[in-house]
């Protein structure tokens, strides 16, 4: 990861930004400050969860993704769409998933490989790992890259709990490219593989290679942009061919609890929404909560991937649609045996790297002095966490003051008497 932050997950339209504190207060890693009336994103702390995009009342925060037209780049002789499981949930009356598959072919792709297929393989591989008895439980799902990055920043001691498997999108991209090379005779680089993403976190993870040595896709497109192209195209489809290859297990990865349910375990936990996830991680760190729980599925977005900010549909409505779409699907249509890949194909090519962004200094004594100072400053502050100083909390403000990036007088509610007594 070394989170190549030059690739920004979220960008700011400074003309639209009013300098309100909505995004700053919402950010789970305190990566935003408001300076000179505009929000500032500290990318080294950004996990790409998209909370700021969701909350911004002025549409000033934008999630980054590739322009759809990149698929038409001449270097690609064969273009494959990788729809995320949550994409199906965006459409009304999609009783037959083949309409979506045909729609993707109409908007410019030559082929599709549904990510729900990769998801079924990851599910089966995880079940296999559980059966082997080698997993240290509870295992934490790695499907949501915002969670993986959050753990790398804030919960270093939970790193060993992460399931060391590639994501369904990674697996799907790799298989799709290999199959296309075989089918078309083109070189791997002549095949364009494009993931249709529900969220900026997946855009970032796939483009930088969170757990892969090299990115496995050629581009990551936004769910909503594809949605508006797909709608008219799907209306023109009359007799769709049998193109969709997914089962209940795969499609259910779209919502919270879907991955966990596919493991056929009784003792699992699924939490979604940043605040809930943070609470679970904190308890897990305290050594509680773990008793008997074998698997922990965490999704940064409320409802799971259906809650991704790049989607168009309300997450709960999308889930309801998926529930009815999956009704007549087989349990699982993809099995490890029929793909015949070695174990290395499914596991991390590299482990995600711990990020030391919380650490105040390399030297413990220097860090302690800084912390002392921060704690002293915090005591002077009103504990309102109002955000009007441009920092998300009084404590974050104290850190900024200690680091020299803010002035104590930026606090509008500071107790002047307290300071005067100190000075005197």
């Amino acid at each position, binding site marked *: 990861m070394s989170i190549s932050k030059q690739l920004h997950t979220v960008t700011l339209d400074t003309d639209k930004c009013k300098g309100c504190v909505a995004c700053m207060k919402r950010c789970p890693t305190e990566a935003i400050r408001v300076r000179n009336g505009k929000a500032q994103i500290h990318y080294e702390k950004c996990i790409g969860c998209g909370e700021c995009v969701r909350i911004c009342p002025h549409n000033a925060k934008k999630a980054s993704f590739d322009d759809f037209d990149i698929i038409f780049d001449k270097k690609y002789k064969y273009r494959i769409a990788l729809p995320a499981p949550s994409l199906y949930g965006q459409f009304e009356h999609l009783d037959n998933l083949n309409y979506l598959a045909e729609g993707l072919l109409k908007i410019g792709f030559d082929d599709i490989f549904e990510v729900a297929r990769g998801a079924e393989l990851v599910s089966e591989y995880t079940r296999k790992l559980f059966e082997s008895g080698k997993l240290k439980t509870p295992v934490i799902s790695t499907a949501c890259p915002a969670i993986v990055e959050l753990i790398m920043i804030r919960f*270093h001691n939970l790193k060993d709990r992460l399931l060391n498997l590639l994501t369904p999108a990674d697996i799907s991209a790799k298989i799709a490219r290999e199959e296309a090379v075989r089918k078309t005779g083109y070189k791997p680089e002549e095949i364009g593989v494009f993931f249709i993403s529900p969220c900026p976190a997946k855009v970032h993870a796939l483009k930088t290679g969170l757990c892969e040595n090299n990115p496995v896709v050629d581009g990551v497109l936004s769910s909503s942009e594809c949605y508006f192209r797909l709608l008219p195209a799907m209306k023109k489809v009359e007799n769709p061919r049998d193109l969709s290859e997914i089962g209940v297990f795969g499609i259910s990865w779209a919502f919270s609890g879907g991955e966990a349910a596919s493991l056929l375990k009784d003792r699992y936990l699924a939490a979604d929404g940043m605040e809930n996830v943070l609470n679970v991680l904190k308890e897990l*760190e*305290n050594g509680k909560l773990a008793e008997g729980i074998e698997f922990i599925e965490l999704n940064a977005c409320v409802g799971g991937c259906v809650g991704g900010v790049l989607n168009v549909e309300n997450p709960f409505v999308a889930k309801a649609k998926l529930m009815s779409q999956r009704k007549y699907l087989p349990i699982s249509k993809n099995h490890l045996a029929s793909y015949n890949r070695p174990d290395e194909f499914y596991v991390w090519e590299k482990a995600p790297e711990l990020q030391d962004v919380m*650490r105040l200094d*390399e030297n*413990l004594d220097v860090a302690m002095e800084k*912390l*002392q100072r*921060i704690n002293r400053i915090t005591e002077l502050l009103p504990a309102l966490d109002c955000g009007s100083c441009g920092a998300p909390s009084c404590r974050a403000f104290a850190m900024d003051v200690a680091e020299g990036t803010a002035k104590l007088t930026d606090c509008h509610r500071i107790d002047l008497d307290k300071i005067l007594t100190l000075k005197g």
Partner: protein
Amino acid sequence: MTNEAKLRFEFDVDGDNFTSAGTASETVKYNLKQLGIAPDIIRRVAIVMYEGEINMVIHAKGGKAVVEIDSDEINITLKDVGPGIPDINLAMQEGWSTAPDNIRSLGFGAGMGLPNMKKYSDKMEIESVVGEGTTVKMCVKIRKEA
């Protein structure tokens, strides 16, 4: 280097409020992360503090937690004015619990609190007088960076 505590935290552990139990350990954890203390040390501090806090809530209607950090070790003192422990040796046994049923139904009171506190700290001392209260002192050494 002097052994004088460089950082000191004091918390009132609220005895009526189960949901807020753990806030002291949360704050300490956050500070230790900012210091760059090794994850396994933080984990041990988190466990012993959390267990201690919960114990004070269950048995003593709360108390005080003092955490002192210097460059060699983290010292945690938990002081309550609860009923006290009549037989400390018995209380240290795994699975021995006097927690009432309503607490056990919450998943606490499995009799692992004190044993875990001992297991995860480098040094632990308990002083307890029946009717007056209990003081638990725990020390976790900070491993020097290799």
